[in-house]
């Protein structure tokens, strides 16, 4: 999903965007969406392909990533995320894939965007495990923690967009997708969801954007029989 979003941006309004995948591809320009973050498609047209230590040390930790995209199994009201386990760590109910690149993307990118399906199971009052830092306990706790960057500046769900309150850093519903109600968003949230006094409606995709996205998915399906996914 982040890969589709970033490539759509590259193919529409942001042709100069530089896509960096943690597999080491810098300036990737995939013609079809990769099934994984290490597909050959990403290397093929990249500006350069560097080693894994280099991508994490010089490029991410070096502070050169403007926006980090993150997914999650669980997110809390401060945008902290869990991708490790559901249940107890030692005796998990569900063992999830784990951290991957997320903890350092979360604490070293200049800002992060979280893309996640909004449900009571994913929007939880308390994470089962804190894999990667968001706004920690809110307020200035993130800044004091040693994390760099602004943290999650947007959580984009299938229902709307949440952004952190400027002071408390609590995620607040600030935009809602056409056809979705505030009640639906509240019902899909495991805590008492804050809603902005003036709630924006997210702009629907333009015809050009939709066409570009559909072509991208069609090319991808032809190439490997799938609309494309990521780690």
């Amino acid at each position, binding site marked *: 999903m982040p890969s589709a979003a970033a490539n759509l941006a590259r193919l529409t309004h942001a042709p100069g965007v530089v896509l960096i995948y943690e597999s080491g591809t810098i300036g990737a320009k995939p013609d079809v969406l990769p099934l994984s973050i*290490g597909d050959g498609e990403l*290397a093929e047209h990249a500006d350069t392909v560097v080693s894994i230590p280099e991508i994490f040390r010089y490029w991410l*930790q070096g502070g050169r990533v403007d926006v980090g995209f993150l997914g999650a199994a669980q997110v809390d009201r401060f945008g902290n995320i869990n991708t490790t386990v559901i249940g107890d760590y030692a005796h998990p109910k569900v063992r999830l894939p784990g951290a991957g690149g997320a903890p350092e993307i979360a604490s070293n990118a200049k800002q992060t965007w979280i893309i996640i399906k909004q449900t009571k199971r994913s929007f939880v009052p308390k994470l089962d495990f*804190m894999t990667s830092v968001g706004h920690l306990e809110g307020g200035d706790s993130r800044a004091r*923690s040693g994390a760099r960057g602004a943290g999650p500046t947007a959580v984009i769900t299938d229902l709307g967009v949440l952004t952190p309150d400027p002071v408390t850093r609590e995620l607040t519903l600030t935009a809602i997708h056409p056809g979705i109600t505030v009640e639906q968003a509240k019902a899909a949230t495991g805590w008492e969801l804050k809603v902005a006094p003036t709630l924006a409606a997210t702009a629907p995709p333009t015809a050009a954007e939709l066409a570009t996205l559909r072509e991208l998915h069609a090319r991808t399906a032809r190439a490997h029989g799938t609309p494309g996914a990521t780690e």
Partner: protein
Amino acid sequence: MTAKIMPLAEAVARHVKDGQTVALEGFTHLIPFAAGHEVIRQARKDLTLVRMTPDIIYDQMIGMGCARALVFSWGGNPGVGSIHRFRDAIENGWPKPLAIQEHSHADMAGRYQAGASGLPFSVLRGYVGSDLPKHNPNIRSIECPFTGERLAATPAINPDVTVIHAQKADRKGNVLIHGIVGIQKEAVLAARAAIVTVEEIVDDLAAPMNACLIPHWVLSAVCHVPMGAHPSYAHGYYGRDNAFCKAWDGISKERETFLAWMQKHVMGTKDHAEFLRSAGIAMETARA
């Protein structure tokens, strides 16, 4: 060490022993599947397996009981979902309990780098706010002697054996990798012994001057294994077998279907070429 070009079965017999710490590396690209299968065939056990991204090959090794511990940073079937044998081992201790030592990618990369660099530890600006350090005593902290900042510190990884797959070797055993080069060079240089399987053995690597080349004298064995990375891919040789990766989800979901598949195609075959025929993987279909 002098590189020896030899059959994969011989390389595994000679260099991989029960109880060792073994890393099979390759980041989505060039995953040494054939070598993993050979470790399973030779029934190695009590291994501490190390890998940034345990995916299907480690699912198979764990499910077949080769491992007692796993050091990793992300375990899944990329683009598909969970790896069920890995989950079954952690959630239910089947076929045996699996001790885990869990890190982030950036940290694993640093740990291998420290290992390759002859340093006892690696320093990382990471894990801020994360619960991982609470569950992994190998994630400690260290103070910068200049700024006083506290950073994460983790021990070097120095596997007993590292196994990787590459595109080409020359007849001396010099190895060339291109495309997504991942952590392979570091994993090899951190190890006490290293086995490389390659798609091709050529007279002249024709390597660009600053290519990712691993000289023969740091390798223990070089083995000619075409399609040795299947179902992952070898840039310039064949693409990823996405259909297989998806099919694996179904094969591996239940213990019985998993065991039956492994018995038939891995245990029941003598080498990788026979495995490919048995599993119905056409050499040519995957050619890029």
